[in-house]
């Protein structure tokens, strides 16, 4: 073979090889472009998912915040509900006390009711109830848990109790000593006139202090126990014929 033919054959061979190589490169390029498209698509999908996840995380954070708010609101409502229940109970106590005081015209029954109110609603089993006359002398009408002989009578404005009573105001020691000294002195009043007194000494062992409700009960007793006793006394006198019915 001549040198020229050899050279032509070599060139043809090289051209074919180059052409094949170029085709190979083009195929590889196609494959890579397809892969790139897939990767780009996957990247977009992942970006979307990431965005969705971020949104979900944000939503979760928002919901967590809302849950905390709701829990706080719930706790507030529960506390308010308990407060309302307590207020309702307090009002019930006051209603029960006034109702019971006016269910009878019997003097002894009313004195018993006053004691029951102090024992059961205030919490003391050491009570003395006094009634006063026109000249300001007060005598023991009923007592429980106290030495009645020590507390038979007193005069308005004299002695510790007489002086306390003269002010016409309820005296109440919120944190009383447990030595049996006076815890409360409740004047029984009709208008400005002091017609009697309820003295409360030691509170029950488990009751350590007076509550706002106790003060309200004392104020209620000051008026309602006074009128109940006054009416019962009048009723008793009318029955006895000493006053017109």
């Amino acid at each position: 073979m001549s040198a020229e033919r050899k050279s032509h054959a070599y060139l043809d061979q090289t051209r074919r090889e180059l052409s094949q190589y170029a085709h190979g490169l083009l195929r590889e390029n196609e494959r890579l472009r397809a892969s790139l498209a897939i990767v780009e698509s996957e990247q977009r999908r992942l970006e979307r998912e990431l965005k969705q996840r971020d949104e979900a995380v944000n939503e979760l954070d928002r919901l967590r915040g809302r849950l905390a708010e709701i829990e706080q609101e719930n706790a507030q409502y529960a506390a308010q509900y308990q407060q309302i229940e307590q207020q309702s109970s307090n009002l019930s106590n006051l209603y029960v006390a006034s109702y019971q005081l006016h269910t009878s015209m019997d003097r002894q029954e009313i004195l018993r009711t006053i004691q029951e109110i102090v024992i059961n609603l205030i919490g003391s089993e050491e009570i003395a109830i006094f009634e006063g006359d026109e000249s300001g002398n007060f005598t023991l009408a009923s007592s429980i848990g106290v030495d009645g002989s020590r507390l038979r009578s007193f005069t308005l404005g004299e002695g510790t109790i007489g002086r306390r009573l003269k002010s016409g105001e309820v005296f109440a020691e919120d944190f009383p000593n447990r030595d049996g000294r006076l815890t409360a002195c409740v004047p029984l009043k009709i208008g400005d006139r002091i017609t009697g007194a309820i003295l409360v000494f030691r509170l029950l062992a488990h009751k350590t202090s007076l509550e706002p409700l106790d003060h309200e009960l004392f104020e209620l007793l000051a008026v309602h126990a006074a009128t109940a006793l006054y009416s019962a006394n009048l009723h008793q006198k009318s029955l006895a014929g000493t006053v017109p019915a």
Partner: protein
Amino acid sequence: MRKKKILLVDDSNTILMMEKFILNNGPYELLTASNGEEAVRRAAEDQPDLILLDVIMPKMGGFEACRLIRGAEATRSIPIIMVTTRGEAANVEAGWANGCTDYVTKPINSVELLAKVRNLLEDRLAEVAQ
């Protein structure tokens, strides 16, 4: 659903009225008795789901009534809450010894009483369901 029956036992009208006020808003049928004897009789007749029992009463006191209610087959599983003016340990011990389930002290705290009543009635419901 049947209302739960609660037997209130106290010789004081003030306390009975107070307890009625506290429990009236709940789904309860309230029965009353004014002494221990009546409480034992009504417990057997009416089969209440719960009894609130005062300690000091005429005819028969709360401790004795509690013991008799516990001793009778028909009433032995009824929960009993003793209502007492005395919260001292000895008094509370006497309540447990006579078979009470729980106790509250006077003056009655409505929130405390309601919580105890609800708890005991739920426990009883669970017992009956088992």
